[in-house]
């Protein structure tokens, strides 16, 4: 019997939880069908989440899942342009006819869905993003030109978490879009996801004893994100997330990291998200989202 995993119609960070619940409703070794027929839109979070889920099924030894593509021709075209299906096709059996399109280079897609497995991939991601990031961050979002380099740094560190800690490959995607629901401004969103060991397992050997009974996904995220702790004893470790937070503080950005059954957020003034969520549906690996908003009309130099 096939179990259906619903792909949310509007797939963003919030609806991600519905997707995670649907995936967690049974074992990953079930025969699965990812049903995206009703999909109307996805943020980069959705793209990398779908790939992560499919990768987790493969790594769990489950049968190759089926994937039904969106009914909407526009959505199909957009998803093809993001590069999603090129990678998804290696992990699932795609049902439906996809248009033949090239991945767009000059669009709101700053970085099409890109696998991250090794240090060389991070080099490629950072190298590819720089021109587009400058165009969008400076040109469209009104950030100072120097914000581009910090953005690429944040992206590099987020991707390196996969290489250094996940124990498997992952995915990254970067898009710009209008975030009308909460902010009424354009944003750039970096989404990074892997199906690896997650923060709790990565930090368990060095941190579990310190937290005692509190140890779990939330405590592990707190250790990594708030206390900048790393599984390595090297005192130089843990600076990546600290550097990301520093960059986001300057540009009023938002960071969320979800791992296992918990999610932690560094919440800027413009958002009312919860700083910590626990007892969520389990989802493989770790998911990082970075949101950089357009600046307001008046310069905001107070954080610099």
């Amino acid at each position: 019997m096939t179990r259906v995993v619903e792909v949310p119609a509007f797939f963003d960070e919030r609806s991600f939880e519905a997707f995670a619940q649907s995936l967690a409703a049974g074992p990953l070794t079930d025969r699965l069908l990812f049903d995206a027929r009703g999909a109307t839109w996805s943020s980069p979070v959705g793209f990398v989440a779908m790939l992560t889920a499919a990768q987790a099924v493969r790594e769990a030894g489950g049968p190759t899942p089926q994937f039904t593509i969106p009914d909407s021709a526009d959505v199909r075209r957009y998803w093809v342009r993001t590069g999603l299906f090129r990678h998804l096709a290696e992990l699932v059996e795609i049902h439906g006819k996809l248009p033949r399109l090239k991945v767009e280079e000059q669009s709101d897609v700053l970085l099409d869905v890109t696998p991250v497995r090794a240090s060389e991939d991070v080099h490629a991601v950072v190298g590819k993003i720089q021109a587009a990031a400058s165009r969008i961050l400076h040109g469209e979002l009104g950030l100072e030109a120097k914000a581009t380099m910090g953005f690429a740094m944040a992206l590099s560190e987020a991707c390196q978490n996969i290489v250094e800690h996940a124990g498997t490959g992952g995915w990254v995607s970067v898009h710009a879009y209008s975030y009308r629901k909460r902010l009424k401004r354009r944003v750039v969103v970096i989404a990074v996801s892997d199906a690896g060991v997650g923060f709790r397992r990565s930090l368990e050997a060095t941190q579990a004893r310190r937290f005692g009974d509190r140890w779990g996904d939330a405590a592990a995220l707190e250790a990594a994100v708030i206390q900048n702790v790393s599984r390595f004893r090297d005192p130089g470790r843990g600076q990546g997330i600290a550097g990301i937070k520093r960059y986001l503080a300057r540009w009023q950005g938002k960071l969320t990291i979800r791992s296992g059954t918990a999610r932690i957020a560094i919440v800027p003034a413009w958002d009312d998200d919860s700083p910590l969520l626990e007892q969520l549906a389990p989802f493989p690996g770790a998911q990082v989202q970075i949101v950089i908003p357009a600046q307001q009309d008046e310069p905001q130099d107070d954080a610099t």
Partner: protein
Amino acid sequence: MRQTIRVERLLRESVETPYSNLVTRTTGRLVRTSIERALEADGAPLALLDFSDVGLVDFSCADEIIAKLLLDPPTGAYLVLQGLQDEQLEAIEHVLEHHELAALVHDPAQGGARPVGRVSADLRTVFFHLREAGASTAAALAGQMGWGATHTADALETLARLRLVRCSDGLYALPYDA
């Protein structure tokens, strides 16, 4: 005698990439190893690490290269960083702060070098006075500054321990002063 090490060239030799970004710990380790080899081969007492033509420097790579070279210097050479853009320097300063380290950065506006990282206001004051005065004893510098001899000597010792100044036979000088 000074040695100039072109970091971008070592990056090209260490990593197969069309880009000139110093990103990832793996890259940092490879580049640091190349720098260590170059330092050992040349043996000059002063080495200029030239970051001209380098693109991005991320925190992890800065940690692997700069922090580790300063924490565990492969030779006795004093290091001066040069050719850095503001954003690259910012990443390096973040790493230096994390480790409570300091480094010398070439100051094109003033000539010479200035200290960056974990350097207190007092240490900066002493450093810049020494830069102005040239090689000096602690007592002579204290006299010029109008500071107490012990306070000045302590500051100079700290600067020497951070390898921001050198000390020979009680005479303090900036590493690039002959």
